[in-house]
C-alpha cells in the first residue's frame, strides 16, 4: 500500500503540520525569487517574446513535477487517488483564466510572484499585493450574484487521461514533447525578438530534455497500477480483516449509526433494482457494482466524517464492492453483516410479516429471501426502525473512524 501522501494530522501536532507547509512555502518562494520572478519587467518580457524565462521555468516545473509524481505512483509509493487533482469547472475556469491573463499583462505579476516581489521590497509588487487583497474582497462580495455561473459546468476530478481516453504514460509523453517543442520554439523567438545568443546557453539542457523523454517513455511501459495491483498491495491485511469479520457490522450498529448526527453515513445498496424496489433501508442509495468505479473520486472527496456501509442481500456482492472501494483508498468502508436478509430478520414487525415480508424462502446465496406482496421500497417500518425500541440490544461496535488522508481542497481553495 502506498505510504504517501502522509496522514500529516495523525503524525504531527497542528503546529508541526503547519511548520511543514511553511517550509514547503519557503522553498517555493526561494525558487521563485531565485528564478527572477520578483521582477515584473522579467515577467512581462515573456509576453513580447523577448525573454521567455518565466515560460521555461513554469513548464519545466510542470514536466519535472509530473514525471516525478507519476513515477512515484507507478511504483506504488504514492497514491494518485489521494492527491489533490483540481476539479474541473469549465466556464468559470476559462473566464477566470482570461481575467487573470489581463491582470498579468497589466500588473506584471501573478499572486505567487507578487509575494516574492513584496518580500524583496519591489514597490510595484507591494501595490499588486494590495490590489490583490482588494480583488479578493470584491470577489467575496459579488460572487453570490453569479453563483450559478461559478458553480456550473462542473466535471469533477476530470483528468487529461479521461478527457482524451489515453493511457497515463501516453499523456505524459505528449505533455513532455509539447513542452520541449515550446522550449525550442521559445528560444527561436528569443533570438528574433530578444536578440539573445542561444548558442551560449548551456548544453546540459539537451541532456535534461533527453532524460525527460526517456522517463516518459518508460512510464508508458511500466504503466500505472490497476485495480488488481492495488488490491494485491493490501490483500494480506484486508483479507484478514474480512476473515476475522472486523468490518462486518451487525444491524444494531448500523441502526445506531443512522442516528449518529456526527457521522455522514452513506449507505450503498448494491443489489439489483428489483430487490431495491421491493425493500430497502430508508436513505440508502441504490448503486450497482459496475457504477462504483465512476463514483470513487466523489467518495474520496466527501468530508472526513463520512462512513460507507455496503449492503447486498447477503454478503457476497457487498464484499466484492468493499474490496474494490478499499483498494481504491476510500476510507471507512464497512459491510452490513448478513445483508438485507439479516436486517429484515432483525427488524421485521408484525406489519412486515403481514404485508411486506410475508413468507420466507430458502434461496441461493445473496438473493432476497422474503416473498413480498408489493414493492414497498422504504414504506414499511423495518426500513427505518425506531432506535428506542432496540436501544437495549448489546453488540460489539466495530466501526473505527480513520483520519482522512486525501486533502479536501487544493492550493487556492
Amino acid at each position, binding site marked *: 500500500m502506498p505510504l504517501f*501522501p502522509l496522514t500529516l494530522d495523525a503524525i504531527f501536532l497542528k503546529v508541526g503540520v503547519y511548520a511543514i507547509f511553511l517550509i514547503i*512555502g519557503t522553498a517555493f518562494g526561494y525558487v521563485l525569487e531565485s528564478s527572477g520572478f520578483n521582477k515584473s519587467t522579467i515577467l512581462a518580457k515573456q509576453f513580447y517574446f523577448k525573454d521567455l524565462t518565466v515560460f521555461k521555468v513554469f513548464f519545466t516545473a510542470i514536466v519535472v*513535477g509530473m514525471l516525478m509524481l507519476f513515477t*512515484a505512483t507507478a511504483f506504488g509509493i504514492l497514491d494518485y487517488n489521494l492527491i489533490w487533482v483540481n476539479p474541473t469547472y469549465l466556464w468559470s475556469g476559462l473566464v477566470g483564466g482570461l481575467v487573470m491573463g489581463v491582470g498579468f*499583462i497589466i500588473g506584471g505579476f501573478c499572486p505567487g510572484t507578487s509575494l516574492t516581489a513584496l518580500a524583496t521590497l519591489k514597490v510595484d509588487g507591494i501595490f499588486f499585493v494590495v490590489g490583490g487583497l482588494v480583488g479578493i474582497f470584491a470577489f467575496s462580495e459579488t460572487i453570490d450574484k453569479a453563483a450559478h455561473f461559478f458553480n456550473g459546468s462542473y466535471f469533477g476530478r476530470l483528468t487529461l487521461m479521461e478527457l482524451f481516453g489515453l493511457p497515463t504514460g501516453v499523456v505524459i509523453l505528449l505533455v513532455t514533447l509539447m513542452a520541449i517543442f515550446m522550449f525550442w520554439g521559445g528560444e527561436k523567438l528569443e533570438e528574433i525578438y530578444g536578440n539573445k545568443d542561444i548558442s551560449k546557453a548551456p548544453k546540459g539542457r539537451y541532456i535534461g530534455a533527453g532524460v525527460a523523454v526517456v522517463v516518459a517513455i518508460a512510464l508508458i511501459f511500466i504503466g500505472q497500477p490497476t485495480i488488481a495491483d492495488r488490491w494485491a498491495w493490501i490483500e494480506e491485511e484486508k483479507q484478514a480483516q474480512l476473515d476475522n469479520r472486523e468490518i462486518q457490522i451487525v444491524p444494531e450498529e448500523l441502526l445506531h449509526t443512522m442516528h449518529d448526527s456526527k457521522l455522514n453515513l452513506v449507505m450503498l445498496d448494491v443489489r439489483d433494482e428489483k430487490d431495491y424496489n421491493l425493500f430497502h433501508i430508508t436513505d440508502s442509495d441504490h448503486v450497482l457494482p459496475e457504477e462504483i468505479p465512476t463514483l470513487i473520486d466523489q467518495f474520496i472527496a466527501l468530508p472526513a466524517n463520512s462512513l460507507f456501509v455496503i449492503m447486498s442481500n447477503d454478503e457476497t456482492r457487498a464484499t466484492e464492492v468493499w474490496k474494490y472501494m478499499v483498494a481504491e483508498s476510500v476510507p471507512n468502508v464497512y459491510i452490513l453483516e448478513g445483508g438485507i436478509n439479516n436486517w429484515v430478520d432483525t427488524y421485521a414487525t408484525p406489519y412486515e410479516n403481514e404485508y411486506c415480508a410475508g413468507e420466507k424462502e430458502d434461496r441461493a446465496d445473496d438473493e432476497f429471501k422474503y416473498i413480498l406482496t408489493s414493492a414497498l421500497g422504504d414504506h414499511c417500518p423495518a426500513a427505518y426502525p425506531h432506535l428506542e425500541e432496540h436501544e437495549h440490544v448489546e453488540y460489539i461496535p466495530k466501526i473505527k473512524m480513520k483520519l482522512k488522508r486525501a486533502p479536501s481542497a*487544493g492550493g*487556492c481553495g
Partner: protein
Amino acid sequence: MTTEIEIPKEPQKKDGFFKRLFNRPTKPYWNAYVGGTILGIVLFTSFFLTGSGLGASGGLSRIVAFIEDIVVPGHVDRVPYLIKVAGGELNALDNWIVYVSLGAILGGFISGIVNGRVKLETNRGPQITDKQRWAFAFIGGLLFTYGARLARGCTSGQALSGGATLSAGSWAVMMAIFGGAYLFAYTFRKLWN
C-alpha cells in the same frame, strides 16, 4: 602566562549588520531550466508529503477573510462565500494554504537577502512613470485575484499544481491565463516597452 591575541585591524570601518545584509553583491538569477527543475522538485515534494500542491492566492484570500472577521464579524456570517472560510467560530488562518503563502514571502526574502536583491525599487517599462506603474500594478493585482477566485486557483494553485497532476480543468485555466495575457499584450505594450 596569557597570550594576547592580536586582532587584525580592519582597513576601513565596517558597516553595520543591516547595512551589510542589504548591500550584498547582487548575484544573477538562476538558469531558467535549473530553476524550473528545482521548482518541479518542490512541487513534487509538496504532493508527495501532503497530497496538496502549491498555492498563493488562497492564502491571501484567507488573510482578507481573517481581517474582515475582526472588523465586521457579522458581515462575514452573512456572505455565503465567507461563511465557509471564517463564519462563526471558524478561524480563517487555520488552513495549510496560509502557511504556504507566508512561507513564499519568507523564502522570497531569504533568497533576496542571500543574493543581494532586496532593494526598494520599482520595475517598469521606460515609457511610464513610477506612479503610473503603481496604479497599473494595483489594477492588475485586483483583476488577477478576482480571476483567480473565479477560476478557483491562480498560476500556482491551478496552472502549476493542476498542470502537473494532469487535471483537465487546470490545463484549460492555464491556457486561458496565457491566452488572455498574449491576447492583450499588444494593447498594453506601452506599459513594458
